[in-house]
């Protein structure tokens, strides 16, 4: 009893576990009895192998802060008007302030009290006189701004997740990365361009009244009233694809925004066979819409999405009931996507695409095929070299190498790690490196044999003396692999995962697995000469 039964059992347990974990990957359809605790996931393939789109997006969080300051300004306008406090102007100033211009100090005191009650988080700067008016500034402090930025990213993440879910992508990855970035992975996506447009759209829906007193055709940004803005309506001719732009002057202040929507669905107009998006307001929205349409019959309102006018219909009658429709010159797909973004809600701030990597499915298949091919040839070359050079012992090393790969694949599958093309390269490289430990041991054994030791003594001495060297060399290799893991993204991370797992597993196969084979063999068979 040399105590190698437990080692052999361990090896067999590992072999069985690896095979169990690899079954879902290797078998197309799992048998019926394959259930319960048995693993069902295939090895995760990186986007470079299965095709798909990898996006890194930056949420322009500063815009979110500015947006919330704009909201505060609007809200203050309403509150002051409601309390009969006269003011000249209220608006956002720069990226962190709201400025109120008042007529006298008296009302300034009242306003100050009101602001303090309503917005305790805002810092009120000292009041100062300028050009006969009293100026009051409210500043959002760093910490509060940071909270808003943080919330904006979290909200954007949620909205993007919603949109992707409704768009229908299997196994998407949507993650926050660092302070402002969001990473989106869409495996196997067919129409990446459409998906990117859908995800990246801010989708800020606003209903704004058209200012008919200004002639839009001759208006310039400078010539229009201060509370108006110049937008344009884009129309694409479905036959020619030509885009025409019609300028329109609208009120800056939106009467209704997309936040008041409860639903948006695509419908087809039966008369013209044109797609449109039917929207439903919530109760607040419905009441507002009712009031606004009642007060403005005969006027036009513009339906504005991300500062582009979709359509500007004339209000023919009061619309109650809380439903409306957005029509425009869009295709069915565009209308469907618009309905999705309206349902999922708008992004709290615009997003910018920093990185967009798209791999087609055929390239991915090609990469897998070539990677496996290279691996197979590499294995064959190494196996025949080892068999030639170390004969039977070489075959033991080869067995160790095969176990190494089997365990590595099993571990990748069990840990749910992602296999990328560089990851495959790491495995192929490990084929060459994994025999290294055995080469070290064999060379030692040869030396000990030359000194005249018996096969078994030489074997033990070889393993013993090589042990520290193998440990040292593995630890140093592991240091770099760990650093790569820490800093790498995507494919490189896949490489680091395969490499570090392989190095650890290699320690086991070379020090335990091959040794036990020799031990078991030498114990049973009396050998005069070691085939090394």
């Amino acid at each position, binding site marked *: 009893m040399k105590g190698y039964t437990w080692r052999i059992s361990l090896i067999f347990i590992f072999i069985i576990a690896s095979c169990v974990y690899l079954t879902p990957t290797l078998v197309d359809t799992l048998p019926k009895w394959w259930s319960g605790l048995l693993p069902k996931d295939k090895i995760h393939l990186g986007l*470079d192998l299965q095709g798909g789109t990898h996006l*890194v997006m930056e949420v322009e969080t500063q815009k979110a802060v500015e947006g919330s300051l704009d909201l505060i300004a609007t809200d203050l306008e309403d509150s002051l008007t409601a309390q009969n406090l006269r003011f000249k102007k209220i608006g956002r100033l720069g990226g962190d302030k709201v400025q109120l211009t008042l007529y006298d100090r008296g009302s300034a005191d009242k306003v100050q009290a009101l602001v303090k009650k309503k917005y305790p988080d805002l810092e009120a700067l000292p009041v100062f006189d300028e050009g006969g008016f009293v100026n009051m500034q409210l500043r959002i402090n760093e910490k509060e701004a940071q909270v808003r930025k943080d919330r904006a990213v979290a909200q954007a993440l949620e909205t993007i997740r919603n949109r992707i879910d409704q768009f229908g992508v299997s196994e998407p990855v949507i993650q926050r990365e660092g302070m402002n970035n969001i990473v989106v992975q869409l495996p196997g996506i067919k129409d990446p*361009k459409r998906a990117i447009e859908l995800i990246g759209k801010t989708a800020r829906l606003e209903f704004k009244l058209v200012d008919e007193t200004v002639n839009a055709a001759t208006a310039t940004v400078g010539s229009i009233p201060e509370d108006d803005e110049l937008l344009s309506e884009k129309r694409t001719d479905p036959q020619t694809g030509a885009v025409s732009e019609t300028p329109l002057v609208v009120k800056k202040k939106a009467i209704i925004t997309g936040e008041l929507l409860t639903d948006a669905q695509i419908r087809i107009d039966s008369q013209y066979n044109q797609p449109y998006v039917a929207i439903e307001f919530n109760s607040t929205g419905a009441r507002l819409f009712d009031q606004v349409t009642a007060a403005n019959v005969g006027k036009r309102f513009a339906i504005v999405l991300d500062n582009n006018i979709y359509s500007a219909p004339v209000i023919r009658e009061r619309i109650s009931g809380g439903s409306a429709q957005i029509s425009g010159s869009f295709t069915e797909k565009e209308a469907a996507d618009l309905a999705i973004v309206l349902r999922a809600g708008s992004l709290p701030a615009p997003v*910018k*695409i*920093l*990185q*967009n*990597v*798209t*791999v*087609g499915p*055929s*390239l991915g298949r*090609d*990469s897998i095929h*070539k*990677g496996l*091919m*290279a691996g197979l*040839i*590499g294995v064959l*070359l*190494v196996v025949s070299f080892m068999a030639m*050079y*170390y004969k039977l012992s070489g075959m033991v090393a080869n067995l160790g190498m095969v176990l190494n790969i089997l365990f590595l694949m099993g571990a990748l599958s069990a840990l749910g790690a992602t296999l990328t*093309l*560089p990851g495959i*390269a*790491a495995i*192929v*490289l*490990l*084929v*060459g*490196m994994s025999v*290294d430990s055995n*080469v*070290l041991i064999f*060379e030692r054994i040869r030396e000990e044999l030359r000194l005249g030791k018996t096969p078994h003594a030489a074997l033990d001495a070889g393993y013993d*003396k090589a042990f*520290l*060297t193998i440990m*040292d*060399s593995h*630890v*140093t*290799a*592991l*240091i*770099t*692999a760990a*650093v*790569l893991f*820490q*800093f*790498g993204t995507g494919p*490189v991370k896949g*490489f680091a995962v395969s*490499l570090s797992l392989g190095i650890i597993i290699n320690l086991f196969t070379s020090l335990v697995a091959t040794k036990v084979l020799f031990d078991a063999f030498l114990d049973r068979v009396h050998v005069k000469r070691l085939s090394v």
Partner: protein
Amino acid sequence: MELLKKTNIDFIGMRKISFLASGLMAIIGLIGIIAIARGTANMGIDFSGGTEMQIKFAQPATTQSIRDALAKSGIKEAELQEITGGNQVLVKMHKSTGKSADQVAEALKAGIPGNTFTVESSTEIGPSIGEKLKQDTLVAVALSMLGIILYIAWRFDFKFGVGAVVATMHDVLAMIAVFYVMHREVNILFITAVLTIAGYSLTDTVVVFDRIRENMHKSIKDPMIVIFNKSINETLSRTIITSVTTFLAAVSLFLFGGEVIHDFAFALVVGVVVATYSSIFVASPIVALWEQHAVETKVEAV
């Protein structure tokens, strides 16, 4: 079978030639690093920012016709590279051009009518990502070097640690030198290959160092250079064999692994050769000379 019988080569004695060759490599490598820092080397778009597309045509298309089609749509600064097999071409544009993958596809559709194509892959990277990657890479390289010095210094002693790091730096510089001279692309995969080889080279070096340490304990009286030479010769067979097996694996990746990892595999092949060389001709001679010097000064002091 045995490739090498008992050898007795004076490796340390060859240091004049090897140091000269290595020094030259290192200088070219340093020039390469300066070129990389200044962005004048052949940088991958993951560092420089920009757009890269792999396009597969239905029928053969010459690079000239593609270049003309792109130029017609105002895309003039695209680098084109033919990919062997299957009418494929790689289009690369750096951030300065500011053209998107969609624009390239439109230009090709308009400029080469009658030859349909599919976009096999497209990558668009903003400049800020590239900057962050550059910083991360520097930190990664610095951290792994530090980790290595500390580990070797702990397991052996400081002189060995320095020797190992000099040898590893030498390998890194040599790989950069080869890529720089051959004008191959420096991208994140190249850096990955460099760090992998750094780990591999160290494995090689550690094995030789281990033997040196063992022999230093065994024969205290022998001069350092003799001990070092003996150790290198004793481990030579193993060094060569491991290099051969790893080399075989890397070469098969290079030849059969496909276009995506072609340069990566090439870097590995170069790295394996350089790493083997450096563990014999760079790491040990440095430590040997240093130890020798230390012994001599000690003798003089007595």
